[in-house]
């Protein structure tokens, strides 16, 4: 639902309304050479003029004279670290005098958090993580606690990077659902639409102007350009049958020669949800802290069952990742696990490209 236009000079008012509503605001900032989400209080904290140059295994930020705050595609984080924490304590146990255990569940601090600058691919990924963590088996309490108080301000992607392929997966570059507010950034300001009741309340407080015909036309041109500049794609939306028909494809062995099995791809993937349990007993043996931490199907421990490592080599680990992400997710969640954000391509230290590997396995049998 379109609600109006916010001139660039009034962007601070959005932050002010969110702050007044009790939200702490996170927004994009340039830190350590990348766009990351960090606390912002004023619009000047946003990465005005920043552009990202992404390629396989490569990420650089360039500072330009553009007035835009969101003229970049994405950074290594999606929303995942904000809801599925990279490492968090779940409970603490203490031995009692009678030999019993006293258990204490540790919950994340209750906090209303507004995230500014969320991409369409991030929203699609969040919807998938919701399916996993808030699924039929019951809510994951830690995920649910963080998720409930999240206010999402999406910004339609105007500048997809060289590794983006969300058009191919159907998840972008325009945010279509899952947000409280969505912004279309133009040089002059922002077309604001609300996507939820609480988003509409914030939009109403902003006293937005009417959207001019010029702004509407510029937004349409920008959306078309963002779509057409993407050149990577997956060989199809549902690769389940073809992937599982090619489990002995020689490409799995070939990619294993290049793959570091380091877990960078799964860590930056906004939909990967695997974790390990880590028990840290106190030195005196009277208490223990139980935490979970991001794990990866590329680690040895991920496929360890008593006395046996199921996937001991990189060939089977890479194959597990791709066949799950692009194949068996369909049975599990009704769609592919890939939202086309391109992070696994950029942040792979050796630049392995999921679209190339999928194409080689799914369509390249004749090439071998």
């Amino acid at each position, binding site marked *: 639902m379109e609600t109006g236009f916010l001139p660039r000079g009034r962007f601070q008012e959005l932050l002010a309304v969110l702050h007044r509503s009790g939200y702490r605001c996170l927004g994009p900032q340039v830190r350590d050479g*990348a766009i990351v989400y960090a606390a912002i209080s004023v619009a000047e904290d946003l990465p005005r003029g920043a552009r990202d140059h992404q390629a396989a295994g*490569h990420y650089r930020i360039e500072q330009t004279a553009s007035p835009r705050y969101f003229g970049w595609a994405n950074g290594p*984080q999606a929303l995942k670290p904000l809801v599925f924490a990279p490492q968090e304590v779940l409970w603490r146990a203490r031995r009692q005098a009678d030999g019993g255990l006293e258990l204490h569940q540790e919950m994340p601090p209750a906090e209303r958090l507004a995230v500014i600058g969320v991409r369409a691919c991030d929203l699609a990924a969040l919807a998938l993580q919701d399916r996993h963590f808030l699924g039929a088996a019951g809510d994951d309490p830690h995920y649910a606690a963080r998720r409930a108080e999240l206010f999402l301000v999406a910004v339609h992607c105007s500048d997809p990077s060289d590794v983006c392929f969300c058009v191919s997966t159907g998840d972008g570059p325009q945010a279509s659902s899952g947000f409280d507010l969505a912004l279309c950034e133009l040089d002059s300001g922002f077309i604001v639409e609300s996507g939820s009741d609480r988003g509409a309340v914030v939009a109403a407080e902003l006293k937005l102007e009417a959207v001019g015909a010029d702004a509407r036309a510029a937004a349409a041109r920008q959306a078309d350009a963002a779509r057409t500049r993407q050149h990577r794609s997956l060989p199809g939306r549902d690769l389940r049958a073809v992937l599982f028909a090619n489990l002995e494809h020689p490409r799995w062995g070939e990619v294993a020669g290049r793959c*570091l099995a380091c877990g960078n791809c799964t860590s930056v993937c906004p939909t990967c949800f695997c974790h390990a349990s880590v028990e840290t007993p106190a030195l005196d043996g009277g208490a223990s802290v139980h935490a979970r931490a991001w794990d990866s199907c590329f680690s040895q421990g991920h496929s360890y069952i008593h006395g046996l490592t199921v996937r001991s080599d990189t060939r089977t680990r890479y194959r597990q990742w791709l066949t799950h992400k692009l194949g068996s997710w369909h049975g599990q969640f009704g769609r592919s696990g890939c939202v086309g954000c391109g992070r696994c391509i950029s942040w792979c230290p*050796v630049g392995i490209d999921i679209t190339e590997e999928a194409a080689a396995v799914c369509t390249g049998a004749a090439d071998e």
Partner: protein
Amino acid sequence: MSTVVAKDRPRAAVHKFASCDGCQLAFLNLGEDLLLLSSLVEFVHFAEAGLVNPEAPVDIAFVEGSIGTIRDVERIQRVRARSRYLVAIGACATAGGLQALRNLADGQAWIADVYASPGYVESLETSTAVAQHVKVDLELWGCPVNSRQLIAAVRALLFGVVPLEEHDKVCMECKRAQVVCVMVAQGLPCMGPVTRTGCGALCPSFGRDCYACYGPAENPNTEALGRRLEGLGIAPAAIGRRFLAINNGAPPFTEAGLRRVHGHD
């Protein structure tokens, strides 16, 4: 905090071989926990802490340092014979240490170059890991090891369970700490993708590249990393030297380093 001294505490020793003594500091730096630790285990030999009784039989022997002299070869056998559980701590004990570089060179020539009276130096041609001489029950990698690793190992042994081996890549820790990848975002020649975790991704957290002081991770693809470092513009010999550093004696690093330093495949 309870510091009630347990009856029949397991006995422990800390032995030093060829090393800088730095790993033993992971005990001494425990602070208050050192009192708790010594109420749980009885240290009977720990020269750096002033306890000297090297021949005492113990339940747990921590061995720091590499085997570098003929006396070391004989002494490590005695340590093994008097210990129920032997834990090698640090890069010297697990891979021969920096001093294992002499294994790849003419060590006697180096001694002649460095010392005014080389005749006083009695060392073997090689510096080797403890496990090449006696059975080692657990290896804690790192240069130096840290207190967290030692505590986790001691606690597991006191529970009567096998300590967990940490052998994931540093990248996993780096991403859990939400550190921006220094290789992808800065082009730094990071060794994290082949290096064992345990340090908490210390160097990348401060914006520099990992230099592999925790040794090889499980399933390390040194060849793919070496090719990537070449792609970053680093000369093959310089890449080789990154493998042939603190853990040069760890077989995956020895092999990867020699291949590039000498330029043969």
